[in-house]
């Protein structure tokens, strides 16, 4: 039966059309490449021809004869690009429609055996250099790659591969590059090679942007000097290396390009990142190189995490003291994920909350739950966890986090030894709860002017003081906020929620919607003592003590019942009461200026008996001859 190939398919593909899915005929197939099996097709639309490389995932089709010379095929997925004035097409997906057919039409075959020329032929036929001198550099080029290298071949027959390319902008030296430490890599290095172990392998990710579809994956390397660097591959390069790279194995890598590391995703201590290209080489080193460690950590004691900045990436190791069950969380993109909360404790006397997201919940999280349930206290090492400062400081997993249960490293052994010899029973303070240092024994009493005069709140930790003062004014605008009522572990989320249409509320932190929100105080109050007055902010518990009723009641009174009279009466009735205020004082940046912010952490009614004792003490302690009463 007559077959009609897609008219002008070759011209269309060459002009960049990747969506047409044309029907073409395979006029010729050649095996290219000596270390890698690559096939080059010569495709025809019955009038013109064009070379196209077959992506390696389709090699099977050639080997099994599903596609051969003369086959009519439909190109389903392919990419076209221009490199140094030539069209390169790579076939990513195709379907053989008719396996055998006589050559249709009179397609113009490319002229062969000419020196590599940069002029484009009328039909944009790719010049066919005869391919004696083949090495991996002849593999399918990645579309965005400019460092394309085609061997210039001048003679058809056997000729040892020329060591010097006379074509192209740079003279390339073909001698193998020296192995250098990863720490010495930089874009101006020239030839380099590194020998390193893969410490992490990322997932294969597909993406879609203005330039079309693509795929990418990354892996991290560690060498014997402790240098680390991330390596990334795009599109066709992914095909070459994705199955070659295995975590834990050592490779000799050369000829990639160095670009600045993307700090948002790449948390390794290196300002550069390697991008592999079609001419890059990755060689497995089978003999076990003991000089290269399997993993490199820089653990921080939990106590140091307390002063770490929000979103900082760090490594931590600790004993798992509790594991909470997995809960489903709805993410912003509508996908559901899992979350688990654990607590880790270390020898610094502090403990920290660790939040596992997604797969970590089911894999390591589940294992840890089983271990803790059966009475064990495993050591957990976290590589690349992210600090979160919402409530005290806690750590969360990110996509590049790695978890190691009971790792075989000296820090784990040290921790286990500490735990078994008493660490188990020492109480530890959680840095993941807002801490109020100093009990009633070491309360520091200040007057309100002392706060300003002594510059309290200006150091990097907040100051905690007690002041006896009287409420003189309560701001009634915005006295409360709509809060998330959902529980996170053993405490309420309390983050401010936003309305999401039709009377429902949305919490960003929990990623859930609900009907009823909670109302919590955010009171601005002015307090006064015999020295002066100041504004303070009171949250829920303090607010309830000051106003004597819940934020929800006040909210309903003011906004639902709109009873301003009663509302005003309640407010007035709460003025001029004296309390002992426990205050947290901290200077914070508001826009451009530093302002001292005072928060009421606790409100206590004055106990006259105790307060009298305090005052008597103050009066008598400075007497020259202190009488014993």
């Amino acid at each position, binding site marked *: 039966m007559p077959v009609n190939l897609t008219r002008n398919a070759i011209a269309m593909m060459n002009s960049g059309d990747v969506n047409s899915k044309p029907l073409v005929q395979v006029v010729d197939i050649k095996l290219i490449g000596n270390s890698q099996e690559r096939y080059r097709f010569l495709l025809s639309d019955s009038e013109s021809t064009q070379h196209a490389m077959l992506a390696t995932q389709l090699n099977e089709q050639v080997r099994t004869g599903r596609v051969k010379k003369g086959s009519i095929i439909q190109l389903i997925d392919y990419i076209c690009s221009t490199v140094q004035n030539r069209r390169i097409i790579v076939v990513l997906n195709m379907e053989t429609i008719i396996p055998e057919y006589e050559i249709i039409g009179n397609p113009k075959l490319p002229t062969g055996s000419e020196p590599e020329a940069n002029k484009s032929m009328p039909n944009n036929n790719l010049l066919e250099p005869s391919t004696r001198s083949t090495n991996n550099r002849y593999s399918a080029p990645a579309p965005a790659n400019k460092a394309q290298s085609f061997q210039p071949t001048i003679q058809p027959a056997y000729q040892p591969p020329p060591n010097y390319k006379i074509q192209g902008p740079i003279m390339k030296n073909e001698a193998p590059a020296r192995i250098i430490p990863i720490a010495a890599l930089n874009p101006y290095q020239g030839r380099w090679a590194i020998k390193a172990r893969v410490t992490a392998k990322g997932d294969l990710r597909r993406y879609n942007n203005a330039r079309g579809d693509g795929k990418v994956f990354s892996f991290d390397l560690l060498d014997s000097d402790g240098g680390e660097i991330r390596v990334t591959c795009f599109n066709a390069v992914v095909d070459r290396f994705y199955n070659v790279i295995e975590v834990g194995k050592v490779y000799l890598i050369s000829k990639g390009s160095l670009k600045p590391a993307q700090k948002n995703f790449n948390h390794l201590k290196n300002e550069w990142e390697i991008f592999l290209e079609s001419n890059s080489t990755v060689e497995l080193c089978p003999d076990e190189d003991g000089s290269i460690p399997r993993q490199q950590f820089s653990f921080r004691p939990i106590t140091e995490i307390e002063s770490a900045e929000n979103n900082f990436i760090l490594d931590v190791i600790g004993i798992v003291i509790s594991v909470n069950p997995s809960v489903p969380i709805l993410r912003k993109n509508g996908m559901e994920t899992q979350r688990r909360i654990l607590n880790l404790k270390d020898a610094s006397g502090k403990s920290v909350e660790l939040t596992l997201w997604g797969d970590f919940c089911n894999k390591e999280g589940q294992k840890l739950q089983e271990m803790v349930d059966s009475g064990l206290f495993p050591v957990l090492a976290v590589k690349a966890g992210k600090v979160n400062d919402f409530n005290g400081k806690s750590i969360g997993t990110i996509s590049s986090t790695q978890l190691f249960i009971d790792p075989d490293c000296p820090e784990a052994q040290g921790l286990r030894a500490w735990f078994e010899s008493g660490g188990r029973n020492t109480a530890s303070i959680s840095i993941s709860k807002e801490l109020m240092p100093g009990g009633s024994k070491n309360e520091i009493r200040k007057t309100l002017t002392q706060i300003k005069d002594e510059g309290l709140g200006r150091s990097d930790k907040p100051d905690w003081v007690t002041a006896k003062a009287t409420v003189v004014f309560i701001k009634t605008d915005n006295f409360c906020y709509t809060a998330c009522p959902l529980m996170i572990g053993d405490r309420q989320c309390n983050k401010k929620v936003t309305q999401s249409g039709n009377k429902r509320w949305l919490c960003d932190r929990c990623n859930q919607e609900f009907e009823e929100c909670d109302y919590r105080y955010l009171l601005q109050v002015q307090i006064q003592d015999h020295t002066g007055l100041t504004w303070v902010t009171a949250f829920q518990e303090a607010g309830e003590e000051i106003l004597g009723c819940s934020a929800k009641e006040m909210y309903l009174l003011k906004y639902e019942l709109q009873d301003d009279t009663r509302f005003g009466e309640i407010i007035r009735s709460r003025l001029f009461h004296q309390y002992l205020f426990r205050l947290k004082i901290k200077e914070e940046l508001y826009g451009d200026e530093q302002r001292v912010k005072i928060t009421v952490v606790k409100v206590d009614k004055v106990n*006259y*008996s105790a307060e*009298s*004792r305090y005052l*008597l003490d103050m*009066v*008598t302690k400075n*007497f020259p001859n202190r*009488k014993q*009463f």
Partner: protein
Amino acid sequence: MDTSSPAAFVNGGLLRMHVGRKVRTVIQVTRSDAGSVMGKSTDGCQLVVRGSPPAPLTSYVEVIGVAENENSIRAELWTNFGDSFDASNYDQLCQLANGELKHLFL
């Protein structure tokens, strides 16, 4: 405020310093009769207060009156101070008011 005849803060031991003068003190009632009340001062002495106590009388009562002798007061004013009272604080006050800080009081 009438400051013409201030009453000195006294406990049992300090009463003798103000015999014949106006004093004030708090006692813990031990016995109450028609014309007088017996009570324990904040420093543990037994005092007698003559006059008409209020009815009902709470455990602690403040009396303001004239000191008759070193253990009795003729009360002019009675004030119930309730059933719980910090005696040691009051006692310390009395000592300061008659000692280092006397100048602040009378």
